[in-house]
């Protein structure tokens, strides 16, 4: 149901005053709209909308998906006024550091006010993807009842709801194709929500409940899987046993993405071979995850299924290096790998040897790094080994216990195409362990060599020199994360003045103060947001910023017991919606 514009008149200010060429664009608006409707990239669409008024109008009528990176940057009223035909919305709420408990609870980012407006303006809404938003059971029920065509719900890192809310969705959304519940702070009361799917429900394509802990009714799950012939993604939770998983795989051999349950189970030889056979019959399997409580005995079951794997998520699997090595021999097409550092450098050497097509590597710490000495973790050796073997590597997230400037320099020479380089040396302010020097040259090498770099996270002992390098060379940088680094305001000033494409800057525990904050205050209008916590900015500095830039929202999170002059946590973002109307008492809008 496409709502047409009411006035398709040509632009009267056309440069051709000749009456025979009254149309400002060479083809009718309907054609323009049709052409533009084929555009999917939001960056392209944003560019298109800036060409002229006709194109702006054509674009806004043809847009069906909208992405809002900061829910407070715009209001639902403004959104629905500009884009009348939206079917799919992605909304992100809290600042990213809320993942690490740096944002107090009840900060905001509630989805409900959005849903109220969408219920009237986007009656045919089909998809809602939320990240770091607060969602209540009431909101989920409202969602389930207000949108007859609703198909896809994805909740990532959200909070405020319980499994009762999920039950509303599964009960009422007759056309549901996707239910993706990931890493949320959810009140997991029971698995009954799964049993609320109606009889003969057939449309599900994506089901992810891996992070929910309550038991679901297995018969209900089995019935669901056997009826939903289009099911592509199934990620079960750890209460699903290996035997149950085998039964599900037999029912759905067409699955593309599988998340296993708990793998801690003694298998009889018959069960072992049945499971192996079930996995090898999944010819479309590209993505595997889960692997909680994996044992060595289980892994060979997977080998036949690994031939076409492109993404292997082992971030819950405590594997040793030989176990990983034996598994990777069977994964020649692997493009993305997430592992724990229990595999150590040797495990990463196996990655370098076996995965020539690897593009993305994430290595997470297996144990609390400041407690155990038992797990060695990974060092520069592992990272180097991967860089020698995986020339296509462009995305890395690496938690390690030590690093050297020389290693990083070699790594980026081997892999100059990095777009995302996130290095976390886990002891704050740790120098190059061989030379004792700061890690400035490492990140200097990264920004000089990797011209396509869009995202960077720095760590280790860093002086202002690192930030001079970033400002001078990182011309495509969009996101920068900094912690325990820098020597003075100059560092932050270099970044603000030097990185033209900077959109998100998040800083914690650095010696940057008011001078840095105020050095390029106009910059913040070209960015999505700035976060500074544990730095040296004061309330007065923040007030000055708010005064100079009235179109920015300058918010300080105030917590009790701290010096009134210090602005402990500062969050600055551009907005066309004005200051928040729903700010809790501890958020001061200046």
């Amino acid at each position, binding site marked *: 149901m496409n709502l047409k514009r009411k006035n398709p008149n040509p632009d009267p200010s056309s440069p051709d005053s000749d009456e025979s060429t009254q149309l400002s664009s060479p083809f009718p608006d309907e054609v323009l709209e049709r052409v533009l409707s084929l555009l999917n990239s939001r960056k392209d669409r944003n560019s298109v909308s800036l060409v002229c008024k006709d194109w702006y109008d054509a674009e806004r009528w043809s847009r069906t998906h909208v992405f809002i990176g900061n829910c407070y940057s715009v209001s639902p009223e403004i959104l629905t006024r500009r884009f009348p035909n939206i079917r799919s919305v992605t909304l992100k709420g809290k600042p990213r550091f809320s993942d690490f408990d740096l944002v107090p609870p009840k900060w905001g980012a509630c989805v409900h006010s959005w849903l109220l407006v969408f219920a009237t303006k986007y009656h045919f809404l089909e998809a809602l993807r939320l990240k770091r938003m607060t969602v209540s059971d009431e909101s989920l029920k409202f969602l389930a009842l207000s949108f007859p065509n609703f198909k896809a719900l994805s909740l990532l890192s959200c909070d405020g709801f319980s499994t009762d809310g999920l039950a509303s969705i599964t009960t009422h959304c007759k056309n549901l194709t996707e239910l993706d519940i990931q890493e949320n702070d959810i009140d997991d009361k029971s698995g009954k929500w799964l049993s609320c799917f109606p009889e003969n429900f057939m449309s599900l394509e994506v089901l992810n409940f891996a992070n929910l802990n309550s038991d679901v009714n297995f018969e209900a799950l089995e019935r669901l899987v056997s009826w939903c012939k289009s099911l592509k993604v199934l990620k079960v939770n750890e209460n699903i046993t290996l035997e149950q998983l085998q039964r599900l795989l037999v029912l759905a051999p067409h699955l593309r993405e599988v998340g296993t349950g708990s793998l801690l189970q003694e298998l009889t030889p018959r069960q072992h071979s049945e499971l192996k056979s079930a996995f090898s019959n999944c010819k479309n399997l590209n993505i595997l995850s889960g692997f909680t409580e994996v044992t060595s005995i289980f892994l060979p079951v997977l080998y036949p299924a690994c031939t076409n794997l492109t993404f292997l998520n082992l971030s*819950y699997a*405590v594997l040793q290096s030989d176990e990983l090595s034996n598994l990777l021999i069977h994964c020649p097409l692997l493009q993305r790998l997430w592992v*724990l550092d229990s595999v150590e450098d040797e495990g990463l050497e196996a990655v370098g040897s076996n995965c020539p097509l690897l593009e993305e590597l994430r290595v*997470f710490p297996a*144990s609390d790094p400041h407690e155990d000495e038992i797990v060695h973790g990974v060092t520069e050796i592992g990272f180097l080994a991967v860089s020698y073997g995986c020339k296509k590597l462009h995305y890395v997230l690496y938690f390690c216990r*030590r690093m050297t400037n020389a290693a990083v320099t070699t790594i980026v020479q081997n892999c100059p195409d990095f777009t995302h380089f996130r290095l976390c040396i886990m*002891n704050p302010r740790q120098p190059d362990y061989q030379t004792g020097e700061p890690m400035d040259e490492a990140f200097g090498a990264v920004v000089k060599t990797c011209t396509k770099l869009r995202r960077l996270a720095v760590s280790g002992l860093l002086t202002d020199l690192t930030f001079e390098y970033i400002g001078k060379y990182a011309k495509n940088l969009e996101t920068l994360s900094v912690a*325990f680094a820098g020597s003075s305001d100059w560092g932050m000033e270099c970044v603000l003045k030097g990185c033209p494409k900077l959109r998100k800057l998040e800083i914690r525990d650095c010696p940057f103060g008011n001078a840095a904050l105020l050095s390029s205050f106009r910059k913040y209008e070209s960015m999505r947001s700035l976060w500074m916590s544990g730095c040296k900015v004061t309330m007065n500095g923040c007030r000055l910023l708010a005064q100079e830039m009235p179109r920015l929202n300058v918010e300080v999170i105030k917590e009790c017991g*701290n010096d009134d002059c210090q602005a*402990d946590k500062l969050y600055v973002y551009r907005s066309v919606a004005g200051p928040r109307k729903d700010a809790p008492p501890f958020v001061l809008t200046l």
Partner: protein
Amino acid sequence: MGIKSEQHSSASSIDSSSDPSAAGASSSSTDLRLGLSISSSYYNDLFPTPTTTTRVQPLSWPPIRSILRSAHLDKALDHKQASLFIKIYMEGIPIGRKLNLFAQDGYDSLIATIAHMFPTTVLCPGADRVHSDKYHVLTYEDKEGDWMMVGDVPWEMFLNNVKRLKITRADSFDRAMAFLKLINGGPLPLGTNS
């Protein structure tokens, strides 16, 4: 709750827990307690710790989502019954090794394995120590943080309690034990007749 940046001591010094706001961080595992009040610096001269000591970590660090963290993985680590890897150091050698205790059958097997890993002859307690500067003894830190002589308790109990191993020179060990006896007078937490 303001997050205060931690001041970190240099690599080889001993950290005793400093900032009370680092409530989540464990106290330094280099703290050697015998249940007697002996200054840890004395003991650390005898038992040199590796260069990367545990440091008091700031809150909300490292930046990893709590859902990926310990709760899940501790359970997984517990279930890794195939191995019990512990660190073993030898006095005078800064880099330690890792040893899988589940792969050993008992104390004899343990001593033999260690003899392959380190350049020494490890003595069992009570043996003659004529040239005690050339010989070493094997001790372990138990769950309570006490250092005990290896071989005192049944093997299974040892496996349950051991946190890490240390090979120390017999004569420095003797000196340490003598000192403790002197200041304490009472029985040592070791079942030896040294």
